[in-house]
């Protein structure tokens, strides 16, 4: 092989062959020598740079592997910048009191194979965790497996103490536990979570996503103090009257906020097993009931507002109404013509039915719709009941709905409707979330004229001051309301012994702030109630006691008697109403 040629630019060697090129070749060779010399000098530069680069990499490796993280504070911060496992957010009441929170807990387990001395370990452990049995620990620590639980959900202090014992083979599993510090107080509102920390009922379920993601507490409209009072009073009533259960609601009529919501029997969300059976059922929002005479408030408000009657009007209630197979009667019939106020105060079914017929089914349905009684309540709870309304709205339905039969709504729905009646005629959406002050003014749609609402407040005050609701009266707080007693439909028949007894009230009647509802399921009369189990005897006292406690608590001063609202100045009652009237019940509906 021709070395000379090969040392030249390959592929170009042919150019250089030939004697005529010889002179240039010598010149080029000289230039090439110089170029190679330059190249060598510059190679030193390249070689130095590369050697330095490899040296830096080597030093960096030593720095990382041997000197450790201290040299890299910025990076250490960035690599551990992820927040620690963020727990589920709290649920708090309107004053910020914690209703539900998540606590980090430690659970102790052991690897028996790594425990050196089971006897000694057990002795040490029982000195710290006294609830554990020494023999039981020894048995666990000498079992053949590689994993045994020793104790669940230890407090930080217990964890510290166990760690300080320094027993080999023991370790902790980090966990999180949902805790409800208020126990049963607002169980049905809060709901609960399953073992995986997912909401399965109540607010926990409704706001599951927000609680898990946002990390911001959910603040409810519930006032824990009022909630606890209502629960206590209803519990007392359930016990006193041997009722199956109870439901109660307190609404702020100016905002639609739910201040308290109780359903009995209830459960302890800290031990989910207590929620099985009926205890987990929310009677206040999910249960629907024929509410009885409290519905007459809606009939009368609609009739007054639509101009069907005025307070001077009245109806002849001498004879029972016979429609289709039914007979509509008054419980304590007066057997004469009754004025409009008398129809409410005496709770006359005949009068209410005639009034509704006069108004017409169309107007009646229109108003009930505006009171939000015909469709499920829009509420921040998964447990919302579907009202039962007549499929075909015939005359008999118009008449029975007028006094609260043949239609079933949830207790909360009824309370929401009544707050529209008394608050000046504005329907506001009810809510379980605390309102920000800015929200209040705009919300709501007008259902009744302010004048109709004023007249209704007068009538409701009269029911309490002179009628069936006397047991709810509290001096100075101007309570108004309406009693209701409905027979339960059991197996297709109305039973006169199985009642839903209720009272819906509001106070103070000159400028109402709160609506209160108490419903008892199948109360039994006692000697003190003359064996009556009607709303006026068993439910009205609950509302009275609530007002007596709530008023001062919420900073509402009692008024002097002269400031009491004058019911209907132009229309004094035609008939003096006796101090205590038995509640009037719908009767004879189920059978001829």
């Amino acid at each position, binding site marked *: 092989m021709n070395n000379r040629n090969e040392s030249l630019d390959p592929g*170009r060697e042919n*150019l250089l062959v030939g004697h005529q090129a010889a002179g240039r070749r010598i010149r080029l060779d000289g230039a090439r*020598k110089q*170029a190679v010399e330059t190249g060598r000098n510059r190679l030193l530069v390249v070689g130095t740079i*590369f050697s330095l680069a490899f040296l830096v*990499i080597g030093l960096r490796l030593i720095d990382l592997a041997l000197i450790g993280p201290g040299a890299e504070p910025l990076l250490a911060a960035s690599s551990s910048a992820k927040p620690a496992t963020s727990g589920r957010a709290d649920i708090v009441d309107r004053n910020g009191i914690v209703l539900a929170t998540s606590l980090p807990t430690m659970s102790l387990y052991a690897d028996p194979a790594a425990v050196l001395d089971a006897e000694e370990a057990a002795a040490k452990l029982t000195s710290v965790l006294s609830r554990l049995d020494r023999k039981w620990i020894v048995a666990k620590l000498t079992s053949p497996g590689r994993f045994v639980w020793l104790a669940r959900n230890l407090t930080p202090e217990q964890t510290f103490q166990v760690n300080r014992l320094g027993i080999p083979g023991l370790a902790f599993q980090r966990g999180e536990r949902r805790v409800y510090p208020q126990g049963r107080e607002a169980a049905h509102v809060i709901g609960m979570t399953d073992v995986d920390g997912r909401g399965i009922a109540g607010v926990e379920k409704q706001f599951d996503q927000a609680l898990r993601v946002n990390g911001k507490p959910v603040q409810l409209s519930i006032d824990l103090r009022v909630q606890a009072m209502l629960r206590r009073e209803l519990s007392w009533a359930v016990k006193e009257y041997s009722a199956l259960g109870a439901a109660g609601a307190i609404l702020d009529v100016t905002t639609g906020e739910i201040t308290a919501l109780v359903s009995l029997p209830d459960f302890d969300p800290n031990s989910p097993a207590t929620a099985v059976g009926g205890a987990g059922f929310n009677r206040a929002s999910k249960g629907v009931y024929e509410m009885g005479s409290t519905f007459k408030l809606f009939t009368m408000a609609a009739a007054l507002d639509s101009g069907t009657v005025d307070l001077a009007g009245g109806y002849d209630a001498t004879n029972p109404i016979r429609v289709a197979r039914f007979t509509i009667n008054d419980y304590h019939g007066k057997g004469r013509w009754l004025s409009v106020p008398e129809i409410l105060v005496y709770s006359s079914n005949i009068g209410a039915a005639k009034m509704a017929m006069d108004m017409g089914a169309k107007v009646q349905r229109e108003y009930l719709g505006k009171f939000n009684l015909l469709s499920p309540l829009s509420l921040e709870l998964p447990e919302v009941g579907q009202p039962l309304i007549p499929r075909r709205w015939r005359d008999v339905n118009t008449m029975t709905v007028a006094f609260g039969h043949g239609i079933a709504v949830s207790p909360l729905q009824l309370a929401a409707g009544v707050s529209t009646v008394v608050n000046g005629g504005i329907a506001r959406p009810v809510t379980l979330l605390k309102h920000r002050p800015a929200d209040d003014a705009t919300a709501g749609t007008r259902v009744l004229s302010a004048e109709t609402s004023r007249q209704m407040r007068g009538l409701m005050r009269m029911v309490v001051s002179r009628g069936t609701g006397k047991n709810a009266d509290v001096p100075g707080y101007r309570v108004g309301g309406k009693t209701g007693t409905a027979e339960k439909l059991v197996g297709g028949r109305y039973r006169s012994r199985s009642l839903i007894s209720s009272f819906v009230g509001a106070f103070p009647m000159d400028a109402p702030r709160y609506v209160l509802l108490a419903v008892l399921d199948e109360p039994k009369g006692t000697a003190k109630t003359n064996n009556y189990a009607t709303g006026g005897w068993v439910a009205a006292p609950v509302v009275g006691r609530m007002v007596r406690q709530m008023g001062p608590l919420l900073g509402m001063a009692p008024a002097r008697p002269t400031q009491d609202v004058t019911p209907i100045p132009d229309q004094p009652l035609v008939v003096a109403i006796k101090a205590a009237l038995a509640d009037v019940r719908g009767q004879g509906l189920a059978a001829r």
Partner: protein
Amino acid sequence: MSTFARTDTSLLSRWWWTIDRWTLAALISIALIGAVLILAASPPVAERIGLDPYYFARRQLTLLPIALALMLGTSLLSIRGVWRSAVVCFIAAVALMVATLVAGEEIKGATRWLQVGGFSLQASEFVKPSLAVIAAGFFAGRHTEMGKPGFAIATGMLLVVAALLLLQPDVGMTLVVASVWGVQFFLAGLPLVLVGLVLVIILASGVGAYFIFPHVQVRIDRFLDPAGGDNYQVARGLEAFRNGGLFGRGVGEGRVKEVLPDAHADFIFAVAGEEFGLLVCLAVVLLFAFVVVRGLVRAFGEDNLFVMLTVSGLVVQFGLQAIINMASTLHLMPPKGMTLPFISYGGSSMLALAYGMGVMLALTRERPGKGVLA
């Protein structure tokens, strides 16, 4: 090891007595370490994307003997043979790059791979060594009859290749190609003024890339402000080196490979650091440094300008890739997807490097007349 008698003048015998056996041994050591590391690093990655655990390892280990054979085969070539092979390789690679732009599949926002049979071919890998050879030819040609046009042609080729690379886009590869070209340009004895100009142009293109390509910008911003963005792979990679310490956590005890998407490719060095420790990593760095420095020393002793430039270019490319990969993993520079030569997973990269190193070995063989200025 004297399998061949010195009097034997057969092709293989001459190869055996003239080849740089130290460099050959270093390259084979790197490849063997790579084989061990791919077995350590790739199964979790393969499992994570639903492949057979040994999918990557099997492919890489199948290709490794082929790559070594290619390297040894290339090292048998004469200078003329090297030139011819480079011309063929360059033309084919450029044609394939054009085809890639037309028919390539887009992966992670870049069109770099061409499906050929069962293989994804990254044509640009083959451009790197062949361009280094050809550019060296034209730079050296300045001192032959070809004269000045040699520079113009070399510059034109770089611009064509850079344009094709930027269309993919592949900024990192462009920088490597341009840097190798620049080093050759520098060594070819150009006036320092021009060298300065080229440096300015390379710097300017780097800055330009920052503003033109969003992904380049993100990577650099994150490098400059580690607390700002999540630099997940880098942060875990650094943790791996710390966990490894001096002797490593032990074979199979590494955890970083379970979380890093690129544990078998760009971040394989971190896996090495965690499982085998500082000493093995330093050994790897030393092996790379040895190949580079020895290559440059051999180039220094060369009196053929073409050989000097080619060997330097190939060694610089090899060293640059190793440095960029290790420096990225060690957070000494913005993360740049670059394979660790002969160690990272990647068939095209390994074959192209084998070819390049084969050329380097071929040109550094002892030749009669070497050391004597012609």
